[in-house]
Every structure is written in C-alpha cells, then in structure tokens.
C-alpha cells in the first residue's frame, strides 16, 4: 500500500473518531496539541487504526506516536 493511501485512510479515521472535518487535519498535526484528542480518544484512535488496517499494534509503542506523519510511518511498518 502506498504511503499516500495510508495517510488518507488515517486522516479519515481521525476525522471520524474526533468528529471533525478531514480538511482540518494537516499532515503534521499532533493528535493532542493540534486536534485536541483526550486520553480516551487516543485509545479509540489506536483501536480504530487496527480495525481500519486489520493489524494488531504494540499498544505501548502506538501510544508514543503523536502526529499524523508518525502514525503513517508506524502503521506502514505493519503492512
């Protein structure tokens, strides 16, 4: 899967979980600092990424991922 596609799908998941418009999400947006995700939403995002990409992530490491760009690299490694 191309990285562009991964990014697109990640943004879609984020927009869905955080209930915001996809256009508001920049490539380097920080889930907490820029998008306002709280701790519960951060956990929901991890679960939603796993479902979207049909993967099982290392939750502890996944929690350290802070940005859209970081998530793209992290998830791509599982694909």
């Amino acid at each position, binding site marked *: 899967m191309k990285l562009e596609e991964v990014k697109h799908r990640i943004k879609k998941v984020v927009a869905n979980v*955080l209930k*915001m418009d996809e256009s508001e999400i920049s490539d380097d947006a*920080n889930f*907490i*600092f*820029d*998008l*306002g995700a*709280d*701790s519960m939403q951060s956990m929901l995002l991890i679960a939603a990424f796993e479902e979207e990409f049909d993967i099982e992530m290392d939750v502890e490491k996944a929690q*350290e991922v*802070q940005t859209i760009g970081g998530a793209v690299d992290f998830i791509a490694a599982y694909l």
Partner: protein
Amino acid sequence: MSNRGKLHLANLQTLFYPKSIAVVGTNRVIGTVPGDIFVNILHADPQGIVFPVSPREKYIGGVKAYKYVIDIEDEVDLAVIVFPSSVAKLALEQCGQKGIKTVIIISAGFREVGEKGLAKENELLEIAKKYDISFIGPNCLGVINTDPDSRLNASFARKFPSQGNIAFLSQSGALCTAVLDYAQAKNIGFSKFVSFGNKTDISEIDLLYYLMDDEKTKVILLYLEEITDGCGLMKAAREVIDKSHKPVLILKSGRTKEGASAAASHTGSLAGEDKICDAAFKQAGIIRCENIEEMFNIAIAFVYQPKPKRNDVAIITNAGGPGVLTTDATIKEGINLAQFSEETLLYLKRNLPTTANIKNPVDIIGDARADRYVAAISAAVRDENVGGIFIILTPQSMTDIDTIAKEIAKVAEEFDKPVYASFMGEADVASGIKILQQNNIPHYVLPESMCKPFLKVYEFNQQLQKENNPEPVITKQSQEAKSFINNSLKLNRKYLYEINAIKVLAEYDLPVIKSRLAKSVSEALQVAEEIGYPLVMKVMSDDIVHKFDVGGVMLNINSKEEVSGAYETILKNVETIMPEATIEGISISEQVAQGVEVILGIKKDPSFGSVIMFGVGGIFVEIFKDVSFRVAPVQKDTAFEMINEIKASKLLLGTRGKKPADIDSIIESIVKLSHMAVDNPNIKELDINPLIVLEQGKGCFIADAKIILK
C-alpha cells in the same frame, strides 16, 4: 544568587499577580484537571483577563477560546499548561514564542514516572532557558494567591482559601488539598499557596526569596520530600529570617530513612540523612515540625499573637487535672511556670473564691464563670514575671463558654503578651472555639499542645535579638593537602590511614602527635627511639576499618622488648582474625596523657555538602550515639553549641570534682576541621577518634584518624 535565580525572583511577581492568564490545553469537561482549572480561575474572580486555549473548542464558559496560545492578540502574563506531559513541551515552546515569562505546568508524567519522564522534564528546562521563562512544576496542584489585588486560583484545589498571613509551599500536591480543608475548618487563612511539584525550574529556594519581601506573608510553611540544594536552602532561610524576621517552618518527610548503611567510618554511620537535616535546619534558624498539625499549631502562634519576651507562662484553668497535665508538659518542654509577684497574688486572693488556687497554675475552680477568667487573666497579664498565658476551659454546666471566649479576646487585645487557649471537648465548646479563632486567639485541642508553639516563638524571638553572625570565613587552605589527596585518588586509594591522615590534618594546624610508619621490627625499634616512650602501636591497612576489632592496637609500650613483642602480636592477631588484609606496616606514635576521649568527624552529604560531627569518642561511639552535627564551615560559637548539645557535655565542663576539660582547644579543632572539610571536597568521611582532651589550658591531641576518600 544565580542569574536564573534573579530571573525567577523578577518573574515570580508576575506569577502571583498576573494581569492576563492563558489556560493552555483546557476543555469544557468539569471534573477533569484541564476543565476545572479554567473554572477555578474564573470563579476566584481574578484581577486579570483569562484566555482559554483549547485545540477543539470555540468558547468555554462563554469565553472565547483560542486554538493556540500564539493566537491570542493580547499580551499574556501567565500561562497554565494543563496538556498531558507528551505535548507539554510544544505548549511551553509556544509560550516562549508568545513572550510569556511565567508558566505553571500542572501536567504529571515526568521524573516521577522514570527515565523517559526525566528526559521530558529536561526538555522543558531547555525551552525555559531559551526563552527566559520561569516555571512552577511540573506535576503540581498549582498556585493560589488570596491577595484581593490578584485573587488567583490557578489550581485544581476544591477550595479557595480565606485571606491570611501564612504562605504554604509544598512539594506534594495531594497534601495541599488536605491542608486547605484542614485550614478552613480551623479558620486559618493563607497569603500564598504554592504546590511546586517536581521543582524542575522554580524551587522552594526561589519562593523563599520572593516571600521575604511579600508584605502579605508573615510566616512561611514548607513541606519538602527531597532537598536538592541543602546549602542554598539554608542560605535562603537564614536571609529570610535575618532580613524580614519571618519564621520558616519546614515539615520534611522521610525522617526514618537512614542513608548511612554503607558507611565506612563512625561518622558516616552516625550521620544519617535525617540527623544532618536536623542540624542544618537548626543552624539556619529553621523550625522543623513533626507533622502538619504541629506546623499549624506553631504557625498560628506566630501569626495571631505577640512574641513572648520571657520564657515564663501563667496557666489559668477551671479544671485541676488538665492544669496539672499542662504544667507537666510546660516544664518538660523547657518553659518555666511564672512566679507571680506579691501584687498579683494579692489581687487574685481578693478576686477569686477562697477555694481557688491562686498560685501558678491558677485553678479558678469548676464553677468559674467569665468574671473569674477575666480577673485571673487581667492579673497575670499585668505581672512582669509573666511572658504569656495558657487558658484552659472544660465545659461544666455553669460555664458561660461563649462569654469567656469573648472576654479572653478582649483582654488579649489590650496587652502585648501572647494568650493561647484550649477549650477542651468538642460539641459544647465549638461556638467558643469559633469566637476565639475569629478573634485571633490561637486555640489548641489539647492544652499540652500550647507548650511547643510558645517555646518555638520565644526561641525565635531570642534568636532575632542576637546579633547576626557574619558568614564563617575560611582561614586556612592547603594546596599540599589537596595534592596529597588527589594523588591518593589517582592511585585508587579509598582510605588514608593514620600516618597519611595525620599529614593532611597537620596541614590545617590540627593537634597531631608524633607518628611514623614501621615496616619491620628493626624499623619499629628505630622509630621508637626517635619518638620516645610510652608509645602506641597500631596496624595500618586499607582493608581494616576498625583496628581495635582485629587486635590491631597496643597501648602503653615502654621498652624495646615491648616494641618487638607488640609488633609480632599485632601481626599475629590480624593474621588470625582477618587473614585477607594487606598490611602496610605498623604505626608508632607517642602516647599522650590520659584525658577525655571525644570524636570529631566529617561526612560529605549530597544535599548539604561537608558536615562536621562532634561527640563522645572511643570504641563505644556507635553505642552511645551521643553526637552533634553542623554543616561546614562553622564558627567558634557554633562549635561551642555542638559541644553543649551532647548529653556528656557536663563531663567536659567538669563534674563531681573533676576539672573541666580544655573546651577552647576542642572549639579550635572543630573550627579548623570544618575549614579542612570545605577545602577538601574529595573527603567522603573522616574520623578523628579519639581526640584526647586534657585539662583546661593543656590542649587536646589527635590519637587516631582516618580519612575515606570519594
């Protein structure tokens, strides 16, 4: 004060009196830290504008919200960061870009969670330095300022306390909320209330310097879990006390922790972390408290009543039993029962029933009403032999509790003497206690609890009357001693045994005796002839810490034959008890006349630097544990205090027909040793044991010494 300390001092005024506050990372969710802090700030009715900064919200509580702090058009004095630790640095960076100079970082998840957290904390400090920001926290409850010119509640404490003159600073946030609740119930107000958490940037030392000039603060209370800069804390406290006459009370947790388990000397073993802390606080004039209750008991005595000028109290009670208990506690604490003047006794006789006890403690009898309390208090307070008054009340059917409370307040206000009260009980006396508290009469649940606060305030007042001692000046430095120690370290030596230790001590003019090392019997005989008899012979080995324990010391050697015999015996003893020890040789030294054996020592403490110990010496030093400590360097008066502080000081001062020992020579040795300690930071521990002290005027001599290097 460091440059950063100066910056903090300037920035702290803005922190306590901000004209605009941004709450960075807040939200609308009440019951969460980010949500509650914004609400608490608003509800306190602050003297400034509040800006919520939230990535998602357009407004919070009807106030326009900003996505980023840099989006705020106005100037911002103070930012309160409530984002999680993972993004706190992003928020702090933006605060720097916005030009904000004071920040409170509430977020947890830093050094308290381990190495990764510590790394995040260091990142925060780097950002703060880059932008000249001063920050409180992280991992804290926040900051409260009750001054009507500020009314800042940048915290997630449930309550905004009433205004008062007590500043409370705490390393523990959770303790803060409990203290606020406790204080509210006792009608105690605060000037400033600061939870400083991990004290990564602004520490208790910076806060002490700020509070020194804070007009609203009369007493400073400090709860500490760790002391990172002990010397800095001592210096700041000393300055606050000397310049502003504000008492500094510290509750330091971890009293039972002993950091001496791996010590290789008597001094190291006896100088536990807590004892050093005790000594350092005493030296700095800090009042150390045992618990929160005691801390506030003392604080209210300072804040609400005048300072006693005499250490003599009058006890006035309507109950014999509590009167006797309080008398016992008073004497035990070291306070005197005032001897009433004839005039006072006559007045009391005329105005109290014949069944009353007019001598101190004054028992005005169980059926006493307000008039008897007024008569007794008025007489006592006018008596020049009385320094303060303890009033005890037990609720009996005819006791007009509220009226008595009001009358106590009236009389107390008229005179410049402290009046404390204990209305014993709970339900019946509640309204009376409230009246006392509203009228600034310190109230104590148990009458015995009046004693310690009285004594502490009295002692503090006495301390203020004394002329301030200048900072001790180091009069002796030795490059030779330093080189010797550094060379030993290069050779990986852990110890300097007696011969070499004495060389170093001699550099500081300490009273060493003639001593040489012999590596064979023939050398020993030669050295013995040079020094002269009687002699002491001791084994020298890096592997042997306590020579007596391995039969490595022989005294009273008076002839060549005895020298040869002692040499062989010592070697044999050591070989039997500690065969693995490498023996350097046998030291031979002159045996000084008999005297009192004391110990002097040095221990390097990570917080306070070099600490000096004095005490009862000899082989039982760790059994008697009769020792005192001070942080080096010390002056003569401090050295004298150290001597007086041990239980056995009477032995030195002369008792039961014995002549006094040469105290002046001990004082001189303590002072010189303290200079040596400061001059040689590579000394980890040192024992001079024993220092043999002769009769007054005849001096003292170091009979044995060892130095343990870093």
